[in-house]
Structure formats: C-alpha cells, structure tokens
C-alpha cells in the first residue's frame, strides 16, 4: 500500500513534470527573439516610394508601418503611434516619394527601420530622439517659450 502510494505519487510527479515540460515547450514556441536596440552609431538613409501605409500593422513593433520600395528592395519602416502623425498633420499614401533616417533593427527576425526622421516633399517630422526613443508623447516637452504660451491658451481642465 505504502509502495503503491509512493508509485502513485511518483507517477503523478512524472505526469506533472511532463505537463510542465509541455507547457515550457509551448511557451518557447510562442516566443520571439529579443528586439535589438536602436544603434545610433549606424544610422542609415532609406529613400524610395511608398508601397503600403499601415496605421495599425499586425507586425511588431506596434504602430504605423510604411513599406518602401527602394533601389535595393523593399524596407519596412516603423513610425510609432499613428495618433502622433495625425496630430502632426503628417500622412503617407502609396506612391509618395519619401526619405527616412533611422537605424535598422531585427524584430521577430525581420529587418525593420526604426525611423528617426521622416521626410515627404518639403515636410519633415522627428519620429524618434537621437537615442532612438519615440517622441510621440514627449515632443511637446521641449516646446519653445512661444509655443508654450500658445499652447497655454488652449489648455483643458487640469
């Protein structure tokens, strides 16, 4: 009886180990390689024509992506939250001639340009800081005194 119970416990422990191993394998199968950091020392310029503009791409990083046709192939460009582009009155459409400055990163084993500067025609917008961080909610922290004064006229309740 005692031995049986021990065997039962051992079998249960074995099953739990198998279950845990299966869980662990399932977790690993869902995992992606870690996204690479922004390498400010190796920025590149990507110039070409917009093939596709996706405000909420299903591919990471989360946010707006532009697929750009360049002379050497297509490049996936990440622009961060679409709201920032909207609020800044900046938009893209298929066929636009564009230029981006940024750093290539590997995201889910795919090359993605993390754009720092986006240019279209005579318009340019800063997307990221020089260290590579999205400016979406920080840009207005560095307003000029004049811009601050103007913004103060239109504040919501605090």
């Amino acid at each position: 009886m005692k031995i049986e119970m021990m065997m039962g416990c051992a079998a249960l422990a074995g099953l739990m180990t198998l279950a845990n191993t299966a869980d662990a394998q399932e977790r690993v199968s869902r995992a992606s390689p870690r996204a690479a950091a922004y390498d400010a020392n190796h920025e590149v310029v990507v110039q070409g024509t917009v093939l596709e503009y996706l405000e909420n791409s299903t591919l990471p990083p989360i946010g707006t992506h532009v697929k750009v046709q360049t002379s050497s192939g297509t490049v996936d460009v990440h622009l961060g939250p679409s709201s920032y582009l909207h609020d800044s009155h900046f938009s893209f459409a298929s066929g636009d001639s564009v230029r981006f400055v940024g750093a290539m990163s590997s995201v889910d084993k795919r090359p993605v340009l993390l754009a720092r500067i986006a240019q279209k025609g005579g318009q340019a917008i800063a997307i990221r800081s020089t260290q590579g961080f999205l400016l979406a909610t920080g840009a207005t922290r560095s307003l000029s005194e004049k811009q601050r004064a103007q913004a103060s006229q239109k504040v919501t309740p605090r």
Partner: protein
Amino acid sequence: MNTQAKRLYLLLALIPLLFLAAACGGGSAPLPPPPPPAKFSNASLAGQYAFSMTGSELCAGVGSLFTRAGSFTADGHGNITTGLEDINVCTGTATLQFTGGKYSIDGDGRGTLQLTNSTGTTNYSIVLSSTTSGLVAQTDVNVTASGSFQRQNPAAFLNAAIAGGYVFDFLGVDVNGSTVSPASYVGRFDSDGRGGVTNGLFDSNIGGTPSGQQLFPGGAFCQLDTNGAGTTFGRGTANIAGQSFAFYVVDASRLKFNGIGFPSALVGDAFAQQNIAFTAASITGGFAFLIGGSSPSGAISTAGRFTADGAGSLSSVVLDENNSGTITLLPNGTVTGMYTVDDNQFGGGSVTWTDTKSGTFSFVFYLISSSQAVFQEIDSAIISDGTFSAQTTTPISSTALAGDYVLGWNGAGSAEEDYVGQASLSSSGGLTGMTDFNQFSTGRQFFNVLLNGNLSLGGDGTQANDFTANLQTNPAATFHFTTYVVNQNTLFLVGVDTDRVIAGPLVRQP
C-alpha cells in the same frame, strides 16, 4: 459612471436573476437568493487621500506626457470638500487647489470621481481595493492617466514623522535642451525628521544610459511646506537624486512624489525602508516582478519570477517580456543568474540572468524589506521599472485565489490605454467583472464594460500562468496575459498580445 450607464449596469446584473425566475416556472418557485451585500458605498471613501498618476494629454495638438500628485478630501457622502494638487504638464508646473467635486461609489468598489479647481473639472473612474486605497484612471476626452490613491494620516503631516530610510522609484521623461528621453530613478535615502536628507543613493536610467550607483548631489532635502499646505494637505517639497519634487504624505511609511523640475517630468512613490543591514541573505526564496516603461520600439512591460538562494545565485527564472508586440519568453534556452547586494548594506544591489538563446537581462534594485524592492532594468536601451515581491512559499490553487479583485492595467495599443475595474475569480478560475477604460488616441472613454475570462494555473501556480480577459465591447476584444502570482492577494499580469502592451495587477478586495 453616468446615470444611464449605472442603470445599464443594474439592468445587466438583474438579467440572470430574471432568467432564473423564468426557468423556475410558476408561483411556487423558490425566491432567488438575495444579491451579495454591497461591500462599498460612498461612506467607504471618507477622509483625506493622496494620489499620483501619469498619462497623456493633448497639448499643442499633440499627445504629451503629464504627471500629477495631490490630496483630496472626501466627506463620505459623495462630495469632495477640499484638496490640492501639483501638476506637471507641457506648459509648465502648477499647484492648484480643489474647490469642490463629487464622487460615487458602487457596491463593488467601482465609482467615479470629479475634481474641480480653477481650471475646470477633471473626471476619473476609480475602484476601491479597501477603504484606505484604490486605483484611478482619468476619463476625460483627450486626457488619460492612471495611478493610485491611499488614505492619508494627518498625524504624519510633520517633518518629524518623515524619519528613517526610504526607497523610491520615479519614472517619466528627462528633458535636456531639445533632447527628450524616457527616464527612471530608483534609490534610497535617510530622512532625519527635520527635513534633511543623508545617505542618498540612486541609479538612473536616462535614455538607455544607466548611471551606475550615484550619491545624491548636494542640496538634498525632503521638507513639509510651512505655508499651511504641509499641515493641511501633507504637501512638501524635496530634492531627491538631484531632481525637484512636490510630495504628499500618505503616512510615515509612504510618500507620493511629483516632479516639478519642468520640462522634465517624473512621478512615483517612496516607501519606508526596513531598518536592517541588508545582505545577500536578505533575498531568499521566490520573487515575482512586474516592470514597465519604454524601449526604442515603443512601450514595454515585463513580468516574471525568480528564486534567490540567499547567497548570490538565482534559479527558476521565468519571464514574459512584451516589447511593443515582440514577445520574449524565458526560459528559452538555459538560464543562469546571479545577484549582489551592496556591501554598504543600504539594500541596493544588482540582478543579472543570461538565457543561452535570448541573451542577458540586467537590473538594479533597492530593497524596501526582505520581501519587496523597487526594480529597474538597465540592459538593451530599455527604461523600465517596477517592483519585485516575495512569492508565497506554498503552492497556489484556483480555490485559494477565488474572490474579488480590483484591476488596474495600463499600457499602449495605438496610443495610451488605462483600465480600472473590479472582477471576481471563481474557484475554477472563471473571471467576471466590469471595467472602465480610456483610449487616448481615439478620445474614446468606455464605462461599465462587462469582462469575463479565465485564469489557468500551471504547475504549482508560482510560475507562468495563462490568463484571458474578454471585454464585451463592440467589437469584442480579448486580451491574453501571463500571470505571476505573488500571493493569495496579489497577481501580476503582463499582456502577451502583439497588438498592445498592457500590464498591471489584480489586488484582492476585502
């Protein structure tokens, strides 16, 4: 919660009872059981409460980070009678007095709060985890934020009460000229009970550049106001780690800080530190952690757990990292880890683990006690901080976790999202509840959204557990989380969906 929404809530709550009555047939059917007694009411929110939060507001037509901390007084009958807050917004900082306001608390602890000052009225959804604390999300159009509030002890509104060691964690942005960078500060200091600060140590991570442990620069202090705001609202000012703050006293064990070193903005709490000489042996057993912040890809949040042997070695490291939709799970290969606790015995230290496939993760911490610490990541240009807490030493079951919880999740999809709500876990892991949330980018505020889901515990419950939450929005939304159980009262959740980064706790209600 507006009146119409409240009615909807009551109606929806009644529907199952009506179905039950109909199913039971004629007049001889037994009466349905009475609803559970309401745990909370307007009387549950009474006295002075300190709050802090951070979020996004529309400024100059663009989303902008802002912070606030303050104190409000609730009369127990739905009225805010007075209060004070410090704000740090894109146009500067200000200290504003509340001239009025209202609140309403439902039986499940959920409710609404309105605070009125000279600039107008701000609106919030709140949920009480007890009569002394709760979670808050701002629900205004084009302004969203989230944070917490705790009942203040006015007896601690004096410098003498703020004495001894404190551990702090501040997160926000650093502005240096035109360079704006995400920033995190963690550290500790001793307050001498007269407004003076000594033994200040900190680690900053600004724009992905960790400072290493630093001494506070000269001029550190932490002093209650002498103009009446100190004794009335528990407000003070401080220079901590070279940064300027206003703070509000919760009690001698907790202070809530809001950075006033404009245009930089920081917000966070300081916690009284256990007065012991910390060593490697101070960290023994299992710990769960939850941190959040920014990376060059966007928002990031990480939750996990590890076991410390009390002598510098770590084992059983498990984590889920959501870096703007890229999900990294450990263990991926083989994980080895170690930690150190500073020789000065002030409770600072470092944690490093390496997964043979996913690379090295590095952190610093400051111990609040041998069971809790503030925790800051310092690798891979990640600016992310939060806490680690001792895990229960016994296996966790769904039955042990059954009960009522408050939820406070925040993060980002296409822009910032803040959620507060209340939900019940059944003994089989089923989740039912309701939440309010604010999605900044679309200016959409949602109230009384039904929530259901399931918690599926794996193994003994102390490792990674699957948690699904379905929001009955139109269209319906499903969030997948991994949950790390701290103990029977607290669970850490991190979202593992690729279209949003969201994280936060479930905290048991009484």
